[in-house]
């Protein structure tokens, strides 16, 4: 990916803490106190101010367990990809900041949540799917699905297509009977 990593965009604010900005070689994880963080959007960019320490002009938020615990543990990174710290949960953020972070997460994690399997047709080891997701109807193809599918539990599946896109089925039992039959036929 030719994302041009911006130079670290950390702006010190007064008072300057001697431990900031964090060094990439730091061996300890820094857990942020959510009440000290203010997230806000500037155009398409998420910005962060850590109270009494610094402002970062471009940050990204990465889920640390995107499949198993999507609502816990978030790595906050600066424009160069260095970790500024970790947030255990978004709950204690101020409502506006929380909304900004959720927006950034929705944007970053593009997996579609499957609500219905409209059709699944197998031809020569390729299964062609047509599914209804929370982002609309789409079609995709999978190859060697039994080898590639992620089974996170007995009911939670993640289907990767041949392009590397992911389709999440958080609860198989929540799908209609026909959709369940389509999926189980190919597992």
């Amino acid at each position, binding site marked *: *990916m030719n994302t041009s990593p911006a130079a670290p965009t950390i702006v010190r604010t007064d008072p300057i803490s001697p431990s900031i900005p964090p060094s990439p070689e730091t061996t300890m994880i820094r857990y942020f106190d959510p009440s000290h963080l203010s997230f806000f959007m500037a155009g398409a*960019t998420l910005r962060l101010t850590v109270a009494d320490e610094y402002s970062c002009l471009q940050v990204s938020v990465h889920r640390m367990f995107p499949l198993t615990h999507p609502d816990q543990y978030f790595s906050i990174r600066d424009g160069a990809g260095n970790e500024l710290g970790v947030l255990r949960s978004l709950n204690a953020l101020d409502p506006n900041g929380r909304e900004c972070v959720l927006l950034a997460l929705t944007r970053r994690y*593009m997996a579609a949540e499957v609500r219905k399997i409209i059709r699944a047709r197998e031809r020569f080891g390729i299964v062609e799917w047509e599914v209804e997701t929370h982002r609309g109807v789409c079609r995709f193809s999978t*190859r060697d699905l*039994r080898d590639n599918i992620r089974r996170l539990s007995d009911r939670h599946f993640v289907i990767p297509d041949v392009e590397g896109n992911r389709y999440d089925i958080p609860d198989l039992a929540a799908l209609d009977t026909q959709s369940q039959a389509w999926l189980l036929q190919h597992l």
Partner: protein
Amino acid sequence: MNVPSDLPSPLAKTLSLSHDSLKAIFATDILLDGSFGKEWLVIDDTGLQVYALSPSGEPVIRFQAPWLAIKAPQTESLVGGGALLLTLDGHTREILRHSNACQKEFSRVSKYLTEYVAYLKDKAEGKSPEIPVLAADRGVRLRCPHCNLLLPEGTQVCPACLHKGKVILRLAGYLRPYWVEALWIILLMFAGLILNLIPPYLTRPLVDQVLVPQNSASTPHQRLVLLGWLVFGLLVAQILGTGATIFRSRILVRLGALLSHDLRLKLYSHLQFMSIRFFEKRPVGAMLSRVVQDTDSLEEVLVEGLQIFVGQLLTLIGIGVILLMMNWKLALLILIPVPICLWISNLCMPRLIGLWRRSWHFRSRLSTSVTESLSGSRVVKAFAREEAEIKRFSGHSIDVQESNRIAHQSIQTFFPMLWLLMSAGSLLVWYVGGRSIIGGDMTLGVMMTFLAYLGMFYGPLNYLTRLADYLARSLAAAERVFEILDSDPDVKEDPGAVALRPMEGRVEFVNVTFGYESHRPVLKNISLSVAPGEMIGLVGQSGAGKSTTMNLICRFYDVNEGEIRIDGIDLRRIKQTDLRSQIGVVLQDTFLFNGTIAENIAFARPDASREDILAAAKAANAHDFIVSKPDGYDTLVGERGQSLSGGERQRVAIARAILHNPRILILDEATASVDTDTEKQIQEAIARLIKGRTTFAIAHRLSTLRNANRLVVLKNGALLEVGTHAELLAKEGEFHRLVNLQKETSSIMAVGK
């Protein structure tokens, strides 16, 4: 010009595609709000526009920006796709979003936009820059242009559009070298068929003329004589029939063994020439299952399947004709259930095939899991994970058990029911035939003969309904074997590849960009020229691209952009055997094959004399430890060389490289993970090895690269610094930082001790 093939006609009309100012059009598959939908990025002389379609299907411009307003175009990598960002009026704006399917295209777009913006800037400053060109789409066709089916990896042949007859013919082609045996099998099969048809035919005179004579003209003596002849006839038919079966089976077994060997060898030979990327994508256990089990299944199709199929078909036709000739009305009654059975069979068969595939997948996974666990037995024991491994195996084994149970139970239920339906015809024969006998329209002998043939008729018919299942299982195996045989290596031999022997050893990187996934480059725009005999040390943090550089020199992968030249010739245009025979590799994780030390040293030169082997071992500082072993050079190294220590394995590997006598040498962390004394010995051996050879070395300890002519510092895939050890230290850049970092680590370790 890049134009999507499915560009809606209203948009094509609006854009007037022939217009000179138009540069390219790219389609996205996700809208800015994340929902699935299409938008189009149009690049022309004036700037960028993003078009969408209104609900009524009319093209509307959702975004536009003139070139002069555009700053810092970039793509942002997201999970499952990406976004195109521009800086406009000092703010970064997201212009459009796309899924992974469009990733490669938008990487090209981003690169082009960056170059074009720079071009305009240079032009405005009065310079005369070159007009940038949109990089050509190097993507291979992924879908069949006729049926839109995703094509198997590494091939442009669509299995759906492939003629089925051709597949059968291809399978039959493997029989060609054994046509004499095949001919014998066919002749014996015909003979057996005819001999099998004789006994029921003799039933008719046996009943009507001997047991229940229809006329009283023949005396009991005449009937006894006839009985003797008929029984003798039955005996001869049975003896000859059994003889034909024995001979046919013996030839069949021989042919089966030969074919199985041929197929295994062909598959294994093909695997040997596949590129590294091929093996990275496939688990070893699954490959093992293909080479061993699937070739056996194919042998079954070729040997037993084909001959049984032909035999049963001929029996069916032969008996059908006899039955029609004997009593066409009764014969037609038998056929009443057949179409119903075929219809049900066609309906249920895809599900049964699916069950077999599922069962095969679980067996393959079980085999992968066993291979993995046994290969890693040391780690399993070291971490006391035996119970966990047993639990994991048990889970996989239960899946196999369940999938097998479901598949078998379904089949064992389906086929008896089909058989019941099919045999309904015989009940009709009893009823209608019985009425004819009572009415005096038919003799008992005809009825008995009819019923005897009927018993023989349902057998092949039943088999032919099972044929779909049988073929499905066997053709699934054929599919898997052919999938490998039809896969082309990613790294292909150019048809016009040139010989390069002997190699001088000049290596040039010209704007090389490479990523294991082409849209995520690991090496970016690397240019470097290395003189013959020069030693280059590659330095950088983990993930900087050092090992990737080595992989590219060996041509385990092909570059995405730019080229690597050896002696001025593009690597892709050099014969692979010439290239590999002149490149030697010593890796940290030394791989030795199960065999003697001498065999391992002579791995690349099996014709090497014993003295050559001794000389190589001596130069590698391996001779003394080898001789001190009870079996000397005949010592078995064990699987993966496990009976030798790490340092010993390393020195055997160096001896192997010395004997190979390469022009270009690659040392990847060759002295890591050994004690200081051993390291000294290995260093000495390496010093002898690299003499006069172009050498690329990666070493964890930067001090070991002190002797390198030049050091190349890589960071995040980019070439950061080039120079001698002293020059780079004096420069106080990245290398200086890494050296200091290592010094600090060493002192911490020293304090720790």
